[in-house]
């Protein structure tokens, strides 16, 4: 028979294992989503740079594809792990976040350049908030992308800024997703 101290250590071991398992499941699911967003954002920025007149349509397409992608990734994840990751509640949260972002852009009368800066900073803010609960990787990725986005806003002139955002935001999410898989 073991004593109280050893029993406490065993329970602490169990808690630590469960915490690490949950974090790894969250990282695995999120990394797939980040890889998808990375590709879509890269494509959206490059398309906007090539055909600036149709920029709004490209971004609508990006969000529609992303939503479909989220459901597809969630369905695949459920089939593999029996864990629901993207359901109606998440969809509603996603819609609230996007709606408030659109409200800010309209109410603040942001220029296209300001919008290209606002969206990554806004979305990365939620990554950083998620980091407070789910692990430091979210904070590192969010802070890096916000810093590089603001750097580009200040120092990268004209339409080249969209190419900067393709690399920083799209590429950043992609690299972040790959890194998260390894953490």
């Amino acid at each position, binding site marked *: *028979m*073991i*004593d*109280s101290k050893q*029993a*406490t250590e*065993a*329970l602490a*071991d*169990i808690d630590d*294992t*469960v915490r*690490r*398992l*949950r974090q*790894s499941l969250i990282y695995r699911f999120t990394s797939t989503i980040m890889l998808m967003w990375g590709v879509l954002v890269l494509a959206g920025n490059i398309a906007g740079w090539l055909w600036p007149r149709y920029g709004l349509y490209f971004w609508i397409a990006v969000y529609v594809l992303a939503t479909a992608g989220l459901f597809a990734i969630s369905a695949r994840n459920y089939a593999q*792990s*029996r*864990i629901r990751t993207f359901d109606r509640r998440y969809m509603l949260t996603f819609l609230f976040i996007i709606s408030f972002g659109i409200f800010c852009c309209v109410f603040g009368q942001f220029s296209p350049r300001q919008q290209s800066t606002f969206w990554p900073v806004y979305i990365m803010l939620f990554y950083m908030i998620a980091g407070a609960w789910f692990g430091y990787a979210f904070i590192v990725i969010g802070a890096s992308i916000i810093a590089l986005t603001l750097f580009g806003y200040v120092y990268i002139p004209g339409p080249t800024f969209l190419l900067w955002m393709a690399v920083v935001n799209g590429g950043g999410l992609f690299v972040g997703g790959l890194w998260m898989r390894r953490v």
Partner: protein
Amino acid sequence: MAELDDIIHQPLRLKIMAALNALPQSAGLEFSRLKKLTGATDGNLGAHIETLAKAGYVSVDKAFVGKKPQTTVTATAAGRGAFARHVATLQEIIAGKQG
């Protein structure tokens, strides 16, 4: 008075059961993920999984994903029950009812 489960109480097997028990029923973990999670070597992890499987606490499924072999370990109902009892016993010891 409940007894500690000797099979589960070994530190690595405790971690394996804790991880598998935290998943929904019928969900399993791949060997590679369990290895990462527990920090064990291939041989050590394999041996302890075998011990748990012999006790009927986990089931082991081997399949091919593409061309790669993949081993998935899942806690059985008996394993989940044994783990719950083991945790309850640990809590009793801490509360001073045993030990």
